[in-house]
């Protein structure tokens, strides 16, 4: 198994190791640190991923009466060393995607390939081996750490489950190394979570995510519970660690400014579907999907001079229920461009025909029949 190559959780860069594993050459991986990374072999390939949660009626004889279509056929790739941001409003299925990739939830249909292996079909020992390489950082640093365990136990627990990563006698030192890597005093190893502030706790969560020396870290709203002044510290730390360990991040958040800051590519989700996906410049400066445009235009910009200059698209109504999504395009009930075609034909996520030939930044995948470029972020 390829995983056995990686025995150490030391802070030494493991670029070379990972490169052999991934059929990405060492030079490419190093170059990837400062260049856009969407080339080469994807480390994670998601294909038509579906998760439906059954809605049942009755107590003794449960009868399925419908399904909440939390994730309804999404596909994307995650490359080595890149950050893919996923944005969307509550209920769009972004956290369900995180759980599916972690195999905390079983997919209803679709595949997730990690190095050519479909992890949705794995179980037992094979699944455990894969899980070591895909770790997670949670949103709420107050509830995701066990209050009765010391920091040392919280981070060290990962080594109980994967003893091959660190031999028993070595664990305490490894934990202290990890604390040092995330900028905490290694002497705090015997403290409890309540003795730390929110930002420090999130650092503990990150240290736990790093403990097994994973290749992919799934971050579900990692900074949204933090104060503004602390948020920047944690974001900077995450970027530093990514460079140091050549990590791939799937960064799920609702704060569009933060996602732009940290991401190489961004995917916009709406009601269980991917509406638009592209590089950060493509999505933020040249969005073509009306939902992305509305979402971006609604973000308040910390600049009072911009408030007159920017176009605001105020959507009417609320997000429809994922148990009963609209036919055709899911966004059509709130879209100002919607026509008959939108109710009957589901728009596919593809580069719009009209932009295909040209080399504009608008030529990226967008699931809209009437994709049009519109700058809503910059003041006119």
């Amino acid at each position, binding site marked *: 198994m390829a995983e056995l190559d990686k025995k150490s959780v030391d802070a030494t860069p493991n670029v070379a190791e990972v490169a052999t594993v991934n059929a990405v050459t060492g030079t490419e991986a190093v170059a990837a640190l400062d260049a856009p990374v969407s080339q080469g072999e994807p480390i994670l390939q998601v294909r038509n991923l579906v998760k439906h949660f059954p809605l049942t009626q009755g107590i003794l004889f449960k009868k399925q009466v419908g399904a909440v279509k939390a994730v309804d056929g999404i596909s994307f790739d995650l490359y080595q060393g890149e950050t893919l941001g996923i944005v969307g*409003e509550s209920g769009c299925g972004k956290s369900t995607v995180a759980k599916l990739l972690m195999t905390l939830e079983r997919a209803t249909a679709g595949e997730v390939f990690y190095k050519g292996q479909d992890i949705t079909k794995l179980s037992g020992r094979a699944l455990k081996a894969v899980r070591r390489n895909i770790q997670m950082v949670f949103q709420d640093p107050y509830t995701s750490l066990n209050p009765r365990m010391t920091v040392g136990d919280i981070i060290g627990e990962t080594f109980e489950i994967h003893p091959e990563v660190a031999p028993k006698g070595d664990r305490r030192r490894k934990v202290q190394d990890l604390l040092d890597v995330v900028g905490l005093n290694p002497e705090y190893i015997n403290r409890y979570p309540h003795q730390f502030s929110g930002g420090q706790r999130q650092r503990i969560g990150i240290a736990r995510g790093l403990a097994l020396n994973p290749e992919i870290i799934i971050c579900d709203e990692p900074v949204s519970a933090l104060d503004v002044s602390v948020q920047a510290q944690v974001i900077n730390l995450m970027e530093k660690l990514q460079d140091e360990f050549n990590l791939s991040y799937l960064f799920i958040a609702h704060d569009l400014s933060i996602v732009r800051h940290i991401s190489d590519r961004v995917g916009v989700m709406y009601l269980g579907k991917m509406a638009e996906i592209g590089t950060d410049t493509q999505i933020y400066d040249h969005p073509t999907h009306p939902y992305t445009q509305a979402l971006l235009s609604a973000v*308040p910009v910390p600049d009072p001079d911009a408030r007159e200059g920017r176009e605001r698209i105020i959507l009417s109504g609320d997000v429809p229920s994922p148990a009963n999504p609209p036919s055709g395009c899911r966004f059509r009930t709130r879209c100002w461009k919607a026509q008959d075609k939108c109710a009957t034909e589901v728009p596919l996520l593809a580069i719009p025909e009209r932009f295909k030939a040209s080399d504009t930044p608008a030529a990226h995948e967008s699931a809209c029949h009437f994709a049009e470029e519109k700058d809503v972020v910059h003041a006119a």
Partner: protein
Amino acid sequence: MLLEVRDLHVEFHTRDGVAKAVNGVNYSVAEGETLAVLGESGSGKSVTAQAVMGILDMPPGRISGGEILFKDRDLLKLKADERRRIRGQEMAMIFQDALSSLNPVLSVGQQLGEMFVVHRGMSRGDARAKAIELMDRVRIPAARERVGDFPHQFSGGMRQRIMIAMAMALEPSLIIADEPTTALDVTVQAQVMDLLAELQRELNMGLILITHDLGVVADVADKIAVMYAGRIVETSPVHEIYQAPAHPYTKGLLRSIPRLDQKGQELYAIKGLPPNLLHIPPGCAFHPRCPMAQAVCRTDVPPLYTVDEERRSACHFWKETLDAR
């Protein structure tokens, strides 16, 4: 002036000692004006608002000094029943979490109508009609059919509209909105902020908007008060503060948020942690985190220096802060 808070002090008596949550806050709001109170958790922005509304938990809280002048009357000297009459009729509050602020076992119609029954002595039937009118006014679709629905049957944005309707019901002259859109998605947040601003203009109310979101402030506020460790560190009209902050804390905050319209370099991070209110640092509370701190900052509490006619900054080096941009 509609509301004037003068040298307000609030402390909480806890097992570990006295937490000084508010340490001499001054601010004022005129009719039709929007004041944004900006601060991080523990800065005292919500506690100040609760003291103004008269809904502070006492004990453990205690107002240890200051005055709250509302229409030239000191609220802190009023009897409990007089304050109750003011609350709801003349000033109202909108909370962050609409689901936990609404009563889950009463229909929204009953909760809205209750205002009119209690304060205006209306009959149940008239109150219900008023409730429908209010729901229409905050643009809840099919108000007549939905007036009997319970809070959980509404979406987050609709619930926040109901909260706004409730606050507006008796046409108060002051509204305090404590993080009114923090729990909402951005597209819904824009709808709700628009509605709030429109109703404010219509009724010419004073609005105190408590928030940590610098973007929301830039969108709606006229003036801004930045709080840190229970004190106001800077007050300013909204345009000036974004262009040239006069306090290192404000400056640090503005620099530490990523921008939507450009891809930034590494984020500026304010070092260190917000202070523990049980042990607020001596001198300027911000000095352990401040890049400009000098010896004087460790010993002397900075007063609110006058920067210009409309601006104040509680920094010994406000001039240097302004120049160093």
